[in-house]
């Protein structure tokens, strides 16, 4: 099942939650909507599910208008951040709910329902909890039951809203791998919302980066990390060294110092230079675009991390760099820094 979202606008009072969003999700994809809170990712997910309605725009499933149907008729499995299990029902009844509320003519018999719920509980490996109540389960167990419940109706699309957001770090990691494997097994078109870049990059096969109601970039996890399309994406995904530079006619300056870097044609005037920390090579003084003095060195693991004060025309800029452990770095050393890869984006 493909999902085609076109020109979606959603306004809450004076706050524009979604600003002309276009998105296409291919059959069998596992897509992540990644962005800070307030970026509109959950609103977009709820609109696809039918739990919210856009002010304008269209949503189509396999080319068929989805907005013409209510949430109950869309056949979309939805998993909530806080599980939303029915607290007065046992785990079995929770999973069976979607089967029991089907129209009488297509409703399964009690035997079939039992079989299907049993299969689903096996799929999420929690068959032994069938008679428990949600309050007796751990967070991770609740979320897996919520997933089994959503899958019971054989959804055409699976939507997960911050599915691991309420869990502690260790359980999150386990469930991440588990979700990826589960998706490989059932292969239903899936979208999950997260503000955790690691989660998005690790689980999804495509990532949509959102900010302030707009899509900043759509790409594979490798793409958005290696080739960020905007200053926002570069600073949001992965850690970056960010330096304020000035671009005039292709010449890049940091303060008074002219940098031997190539600016893209789109950058002019005040801009930001982005470099990943691991893309900076440390060498002797005079060996790189930047000059600096080592202020502090911290060694851990295979790397050492150093604070370096850059010397530029006016004022000092402190940046943090990584260097291999065997590279001799002492406080007070003068070093040359060469960015192997970098990006320059004009200030918005």
């Amino acid at each position: 099942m493909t999902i085609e979202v076109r020109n979606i606008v959603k306004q809450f009072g004076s706050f524009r939650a979604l600003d002309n969003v276009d998105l296409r999700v291919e059959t069998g994809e596992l897509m992540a909507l990644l962005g800070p809170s307030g970026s509109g990712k959950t609103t977009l997910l709820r609109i696809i599910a039918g739990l919210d309605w856009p002010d304008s725009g269209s949503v189509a499933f396999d080319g068929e208008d989805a907005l013409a149907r209510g949430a109950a008729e869309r056949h979309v499995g939805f998993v909530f951040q806080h599980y939303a299990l029915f607290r007065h029902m046992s785990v079995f009844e929770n999973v069976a709910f979607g089967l029991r509320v089907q129209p009488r003519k297509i409703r399964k018999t009690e035997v079939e329902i039992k079989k299907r719920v049993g299969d689903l509980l096996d799929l999420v490996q929690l068959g032994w909890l069938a008679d428990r109540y949600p309050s007796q389960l751990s967070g991770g167990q609740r979320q897996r039951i919520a997933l089994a419940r959503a899958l019971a109706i054989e959804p055409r699309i699976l939507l997960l809203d911050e599915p691991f957001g309420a869990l502690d770090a260790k359980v999150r990691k386990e469930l991440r791998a588990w979700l990826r494997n589960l998706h490989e097994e059932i292969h239903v078109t899936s979208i999950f919302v997260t503000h955790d870049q690691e989660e998005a990059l690790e689980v999804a096969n495509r990532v949509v980066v959102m900010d302030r109601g707009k899509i900043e970039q759509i790409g594979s996890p490798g793409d958005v990390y290696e080739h960020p399309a905007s200053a926002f994406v570069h600073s949001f995904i992965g850690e970056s060294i960010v330096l304020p530079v000035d671009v005039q006619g292709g010449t890049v300056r940091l303060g008074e110092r002219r940098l031997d870097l190539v600016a893209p044609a789109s950058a002019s005037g005040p801009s930001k230079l982005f470099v990943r920390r691991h893309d900076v090579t440390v060498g002797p003084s005079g060996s790189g675009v930047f000059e600096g003095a080592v202020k502090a060195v911290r060694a851990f693991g295979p790397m050492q991390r150093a604070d370096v004060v850059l010397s530029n025309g006016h004022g000092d800029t402190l940046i943090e760099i990584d260097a291999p452990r065997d590279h001799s770095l002492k406080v007070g050393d003068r070093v040359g820094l060469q960015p192997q890869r970098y990006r320059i984006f004009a200030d918005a």
Partner: protein
Amino acid sequence: MTMVATTPLRRSGRDVAVPALDAGAGRRAAHTEPAWVRLVIIGFAIAFLTVFVGLPLILVFSEALSKGIAFYLSALADSEALAAIQLTLIAAGISVGLNLVFGVIAAWAIAKFDFPGKTLLITLIDLPFSVSPVISGLVFVLLFGAQGWFGPWLMAHGVQILFAVPAIVLATTFVTFPFVARELIPLMQEQGQQEEEAAISLGAGGWTTFWRVTLPNIKWGLLYGVLLCNARAMGEFGAVSVVSGHIRGETNTMPLLVEILYNEYQMVAAFAVASLLALLALVTLIAKTVLEGRIEQGLQHHDH
């Protein structure tokens, strides 16, 4: 299957070192008062409750039974008493039924939707709490009385509202309106609407969602509201007194009859009827305590 095994909940808390408990042994915890202070405070509370709550209750029953159980029963079997009991049950039954429906609808609207005028609606629901019941009764006189807004029209069409059962039901309904809604609004707000959204995304329609998800979640709170609503409806005096007209055997509810009997120095009969109201209060109290426990549990089930 290629799934990562997730281990069930491990209880690892057992081997965590327990901080030494005897650090402050020999000293009192900071919040513990000396024994005599505690005794005085507890004693005062018990004495106060005995005098102001316990004694009157015992007195009601001892007065009612002062001439023997036979006299007590005959006082209750009196036709005026029976009529009052019947009217009270009718008025309470109808008003509780109406407020049950109104209360659920109002609480649903307030807890689950945002709409202009929501604050106004919440304030309006509270109005019967803040207005004196006598004023509430007077409002109905102004509306339906001979000189009231609808009075002449009603009289022309032969509809009797004031000084008849309809006015008593209306006044009772008005005075007891907030109980169900007030109880449900915080409960439903606390529970949010995610379970309803989950039900709808699983294909359930509006009614199914209400019966299978919403109602089971609010049932104890609803019962609690109904209980308080009923207690107040049966015990209401002020508003009903204004609109009833005190027609003997016709428009007297139990509280009104108690007053009339008392004024006529029929002490035993007055206390006999009063004892029924007191009994209602006791039953309400016990049921309330049980329900409060249930609601507490229901909310704990909700923890996430």
